[in-house]
């Protein structure tokens, strides 16, 4: 992998790794068990620029490229995937659409606080009746003078419990089908903006994933991104970028599982030798390492294409599919290497196993990704 990195990327990696291993790793088990969002860490991440990685420097961001972005998400996710999720969603599907589709006024209003981590962003697309089929959303935003009256019931909002700025998918023209979907930026504190209970999830437990309900919420018309009817286009663009982030999150989980598997295999003695001497374990380690490397290469390629301003949609989808399935498989093997201890919360692999599972579901399920990839190939 190193062969593909510039000096700068390597320094990004070593500095983020130092931070993640010292500040996040030691608390990763506790925040998972207590379902605690570690503000003390998030604040530091904001100061270091991890919450505005690709935002331009004029707007308070670090102004870095997509390769730096995935390096950072991988390293943070390796220490605690739920924090990697926070950073990935905040950077890619919350901040990015505002940057890419917002006007100068919206940039000034939202970007600096998000980029510095003073405010946390969220992405609100999924509803009870609209998951994989995003065009089925029922949330509405009806124009009323210089405002929209917004009603929405959004579920599974990552960062939902702490988010100040929500990129919200709504119908501005309920009669127009998919072309009637738009994106409006909703801010916490607006009357009618209600955050629901935290979801009791299997993994990603340190992330306050919540539902968010807007009831007759009056949102200024100037918060609408781009134009009415652009919603699906914005959503797809955001998810293309988001997928690279989720893919690198999956690589981070897989890397953690691989390293823990190697360590345990060398330490655990059965039949008078370290289990790493048994061929079945060696086969697992070889498969794990090979799969992690190939997933990572695909993620790098997608990010590199993005930096070169070339089409990367298919490559991002392939990388996300590959990396998320790899994370699940590798975490599963890491549990297997740990035997009964792997099924206990005393070791990290049990958490990787739970955390890895969701990467095959959110920001597009594996099935949806196969559809996207096949369409790209067959069209």
């Amino acid at each position: 992998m190193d062969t593909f990195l510039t000096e700068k990327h390597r320094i990004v990696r070593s500095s983020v790794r130092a931070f993640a291993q010292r500040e996040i790793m030691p608390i990763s088990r506790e925040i998972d068990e207590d379902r605690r969002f570690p503000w003390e860490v998030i604040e530091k991440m904001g100061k270091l620029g991890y919450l505005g990685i690709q935002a331009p420097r004029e707007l308070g961001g670090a102004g870095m490229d997509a390769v730096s972005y995935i390096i950072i998400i991988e390293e943070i996710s390796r220490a605690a995937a739920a924090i990697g999720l926070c950073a990935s969603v905040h950077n890619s599907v919350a901040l990015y659409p505002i940057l890419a589709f917002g006007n100068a006024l919206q940039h000034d209003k939202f970007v600096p606080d998000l980029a510095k981590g003073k405010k946390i962003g969220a992405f609100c697309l999924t509803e009870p009746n609209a998951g994989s089929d995003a065009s089925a959303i029922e949330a509405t935003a009806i124009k009323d003078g210089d405002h929209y009256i917004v009603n929405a019931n959004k579920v599974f909002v990552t960062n939902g419990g702490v988010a100040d700025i929500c990129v919200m998918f709504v119908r501005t023209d309920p009669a127009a089908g998919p072309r009637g979907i738009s994106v409006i930026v909703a801010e916490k504190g607006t009357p009618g903006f209600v955050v629901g209970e935290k979801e009791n999830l299997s993994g990603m437990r340190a992330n306050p994933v919540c539902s968010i309900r807007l009831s007759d919420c009056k949102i200024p018309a100037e918060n609408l991104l781009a134009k009415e009817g652009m919603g699906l286009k914005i959503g797809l663009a955001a998810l293309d970028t988001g997928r690279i982030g989720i893919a690198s999150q999956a690589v981070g989980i897989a890397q953690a599982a691989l390293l823990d598997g190697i360590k345990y295999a060398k330490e655990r003695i059965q039949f008078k030798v370290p289990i790493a001497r048994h061929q079945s374990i060696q086969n697992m380690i070889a498969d794990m390492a090979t799969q992690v490397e190939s997933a990572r290469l695909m993620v790098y390629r997608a990010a590199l294409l993005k930096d070169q301003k070339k089409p990367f949609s298919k490559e991002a989808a392939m990388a996300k599919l590959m990396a998320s399935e790899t994370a699940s498989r590798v975490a599963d093997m890491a549990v297997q290497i740990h035997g009964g201890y792997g099924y206990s919360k005393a070791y990290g692999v049990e958490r990787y196993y739970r955390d890895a599972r969701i990467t095959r579901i959110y920001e597009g399920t594996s099935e949806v990704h196969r559809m996207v990839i096949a369409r790209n190939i067959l069209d």
Partner: protein
Amino acid sequence: MLEPEEILLHVQKNKYGKDMGLNIIVCIKAVAEGTWGAKNTDKNFTLNLFDRPAIEMAMELTKKYDGTVTLVSMGPESACSALYEAMSMGPQKAVLLSDPLFRESDTYATAKVLSAAIKKLAPFDLLFFGTRSSDSDTGHVGPQTSQMLSIPYISNVHEMVDLGMDKATVERRADGFVERFQITGPGAMGVVHDGTEYGYTGLYEIENTFDGKSIQRWDHSDLGLEPHEIGLPGSPTKIVALNPHKSKKQCRFITGDVAQAAETLAQTLSQAGLVD
């Protein structure tokens, strides 16, 4: 050996508003990532952890008094990654001393190369080192280099108490004492961490580092050194053997009820001098 007039303490000049301010040189080392004994595969070099406090102190001082921090490192081309890492902490200039002839230098030959480079960079006010390196823990290079430059060296400095006119007052910790020294410049010191929060390099600083800053490279001829003075030929120390060493572990079980066991444990540790 430097002549006194070659070296001027620029703090003084700066106070009268004449010169460019403090000139600090920090010697840093690139170490292979991982623990001691990790393979030197010519890649994955990272900044020696123990050099960070020296860079931090240099940056603090130049923020306060104005001036320039110059990094110097001897190592292969791949050591640049450590220099970049160090530059992302703020220093404005960096020199890599790189030459195949420098290979396999021991601490003495390394100090030769470093002191030659520092002479070339003179005049300067302060010369900083880390206290040790995480890959080969000798702690020799700082004192040896200072000796070759005929300037004073103070080890384990944790605080710069005062810096004025032609004097620097520093504090060092040793054997449970705090010692205060005054030296006339230029002087060298090994800087230790003063226990403040460990700083991580943010993305903003990394981005700044790569904004047009570049690393200068000097080889043996730039430094006026002869091949016999450096590398293996110039190294009086030869490593004869290198074997892993396992320290003996003693294990004693403390039994009994919890309060009593805790008391026994505390006493045992205290008697062994491990806790106060």
